[in-house]
């Protein structure tokens, strides 16, 4: 049995523990690869080459990382307020609906106006879908974990209904909208940087990546340098102290959930406005859940989230290339790795802290 949580120096807590648990998770993934009769070293080499071996590969990797930055930050912000938002998928779905409606209905507007409005619509959709569970917890006492799970499913049925019955493209066999006007979408990175003399290969990487980087800085400022962030962290670390300090627990709960949902909406900005240029079913593709792994691994800090998002970007892009060469190792490997990272860096955090402490010679194992 474990005793009280181990106290570790900051560098070990923020750096070594996640590193050890991620390494252990990758080792487990290696065992799975061995289990299906492949060579994990060869697989790793293929994966890395596929993710980082060329400019094009790096572009794809960063495009995936963009999704994970948004969903990871979403989970992290809520977590700082002591809230576990597992509704990233549903919030991104609503954000996609918001962005799509804006892009379709406001198409007469010029791009300079339309694109920011559509991004705002995405943020608003995501924020609203997180705000309702936040409001229900704040005022009615229903737990956000359960409500956000339920809202994921409600969002999933809502988007089916909308795409099948209302805003679907009648000419398409798929449940999807028609393509947005060319001025309603985000600029791909290779076109954006071309005027600067940078020649990049054409990849899905688009200006949403810059928005993701800005979000990283914004979240850092918000959580660690602002008065609101101080209040949010107080609520997360000790809700009773928050009440004592005169903070409005219900207001902060709703604000934190809304910010979290808006960040999850970034996934829709990247996917719907940046890549697909239309709204289709299942564009969230589990990125919302992987965001939980990203946030846990990154210890809720934007720097950690950025690094974790990059790792998952590498795994996603490299995994796609790997699946091409080794059809038995499908992309689902990344889901497994995500699951194991959540288990190790999240639920078994105590065990890994104890292991690291034992390795450093701090404290005694019981």
């Amino acid at each position, binding site marked *: 049995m474990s005793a*009280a949580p181990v106290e570790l120096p900051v560098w070990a807590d923020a750096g070594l523990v996640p590193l050890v648990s991620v390494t252990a998770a990758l080792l487990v993934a290696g065992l799975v690869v061995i289990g299906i009769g492949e060579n994990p070293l060869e697989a790793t080499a293929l994966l890395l080459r596929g993710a980082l071996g060329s400019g094009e590969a790096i572009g794809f990797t960063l495009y995936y990382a963009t999704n994970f930055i948004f969903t990871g930050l979403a989970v992290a912000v809520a977590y700082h307020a002591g809230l576990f938002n597992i509704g990233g998928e549903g919030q991104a779905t609503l954000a996609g609906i918001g962005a799509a409606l804006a892009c379709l209905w406001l198409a007469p507007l010029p791009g300079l106006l339309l694109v920011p409005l559509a991004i705002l619509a995405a943020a608003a959709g995501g924020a609203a879908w997180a705000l309702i569970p936040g409001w229900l917890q704040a005022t009615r006492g229903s737990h956000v974990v359960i409500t956000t799970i339920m809202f994921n499913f409600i969002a999933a049925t809502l988007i089916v209904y909308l795409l099948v019955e209302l805003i679907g493209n009648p000419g398409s066999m798929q449940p999807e909208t028609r393509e947005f006007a060319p001025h309603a979408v985000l600029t791909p990175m290779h076109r954006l940087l071309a005027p600067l003399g940078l020649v990049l290969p054409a990849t899905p990487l688009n200006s949403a990546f810059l928005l993701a980087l800005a979000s990283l800085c914004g979240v850092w*400022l918000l959580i660690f*340098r*602002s*008065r*609101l*962030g*101080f*209040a949010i*962290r*107080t609520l997360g*670390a*000790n809700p*009773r*102290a928050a*009440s*004592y*300090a*005169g*903070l409005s627990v219900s207001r902060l709960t709703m604000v934190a959930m809304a910010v979290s949902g808006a960040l999850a909406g970034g996934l829709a900005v990247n996917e719907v406005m940046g890549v697909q240029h239309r709204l289709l079913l299942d564009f969230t593709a589990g990125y919302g859940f992987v965001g939980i792994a990203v946030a846990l691994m990154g210890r809720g800090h934007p720097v950690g989230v950025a690094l974790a998002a990059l790792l998952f970007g590498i795994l996603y892009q490299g995994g796609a290339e790997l699946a091409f060469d080794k059809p038995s190792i499908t992309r689902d490997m990344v889901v497994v790795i995500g699951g194991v990272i959540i288990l190790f860096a999240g639920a078994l955090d105590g065990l890994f802290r104890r292991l690291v402490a034992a390795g450093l010679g701090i404290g005694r194992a019981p």
Partner: protein
Amino acid sequence: MSEAAAAPAIELIGISKRFGPVQANDGVSLQVAAGTVHGIVGENGAGKSTLMSILYGFYAADAGTIRIAGREVEIRSSGEAIAAGIGMVHQHFMLVETLSVLDNIMLGVEGGALLRGGMRRARAELARLSGAYGLAIDPDALVGELPVGLQQRVEILKALYRGADILILDEPTAVLTPPEADQLFALLRALTAQGKTVILITHKLREIMAVTDHVSVMRRGRMIAHLATAATSPAALAEAMVGRRVLLRVEKPPRRPGPPVLAMQGVGLRDARGVTRLSEIDLVLRAGEIVGVAGVAGNGQSELLAVLAGLAQPSRGEISLDGRVLGPAERNPAALRRLGVMHIPEDRQKDGLVTAFSAAENCILGYHDDAAFGPGPLLSPSRIRRHARAAFAAYDVRPPDPELKTAKFSGGNQQKIVLAREIERAPRVLLVGQPTRGVDIGAIEFIHRRLIALREAGVAILLVSVELDEVMALSDRIIALCGGRITGERAAAEADERDLGLLIAGVTGEAA
């Protein structure tokens, strides 16, 4: 009581237990004679509860030997303690509120995989025990619906049902009124008369003198003295507890109180379940006076603080500051702080601090909107650190390291951080809950001096403390709370413990 030649009921030899950096028990030895009530006194954190938890198998000792009736035993779990004939009534009852009395009593000793047969036997045995000790109880009542005194009765019956020969009671009177406590003491005597052995843990000397045969004193994890109760006095025990003569009287110049600052009129409070917690509270706090609140824990003191601090909304009555009735928008902690009503909460770790934050961050808790701490919506870490350093110097917080995590400070230094934060902004009214709970003696004196200094500066202070001595030493006036009502008021100079005890018990001043 005769010191029989028979082996003592309990013998502890050289018990040691360490929690991280804290040596909770350090080579503690103890002998308890069978058929006696043995008191263990000591301040909060002296190691009494840890010692009893070891005896009850809740923790394993790092070193030491336990003998029960002369036989060496190893107690590694509560189950083994029960088997060794030890029963414990915890300070926080170990009851399942959604289950019936009978279910609670049977839990762990059901007597078979199916409940039916065991239940019948348990019902009969419970009836017998109730009769034998005069502990009437409805076996089918839900425990959560019983009043606190009856819940304690269930705990005692639980131990007796398990055939306990040794009964440990941890601060059993903390939740009882004086008459209920007297009933309990009568029961303890009845138990020893039938050969049971009782260990009573308390920090209230009155109880030790009233009911025990022997008393052992603990201080900072060590056993300091073993005494026969008849051969000692409260003053001697107090001295042993704290390690030097205690100044029960705080040096306090006489002072005429100023004009009324905070007033409550007909204030009542119902909790979420509709239970009345406060009723018809009329109270005036004047500038430059300390009003002490005396009462048994759970009689409305916490609620009184909560209402005044804006943490709970009164269901009736009004509260006024400087003669002006406070509106609903002003009855929240943030607005009240701006009006100069500051609050040192009863439980600093649960309410007053975020122990995971740095000490510097805790110095701005509740004041993080102050423009001094950063530009616009942002906070400046360097300004927050500088502010904390100044506060630490003024209040002698050790170590004076603003970056250190608050959890790593001692209880006294944590309390100083709260104190510094709440009084540095020149409060008009200071609400103080349990200012010296779990605080070392040096810090106690520091805190007392600061409170007296604030009184000199004209602050109106409301003091809530479970330590009647502290209330009597610091206050100018004392009000007694019982069942959420003010049952009497005394000028501190005229108050004596017996008189206050009656008020606390709800016997009104006129009748007494």
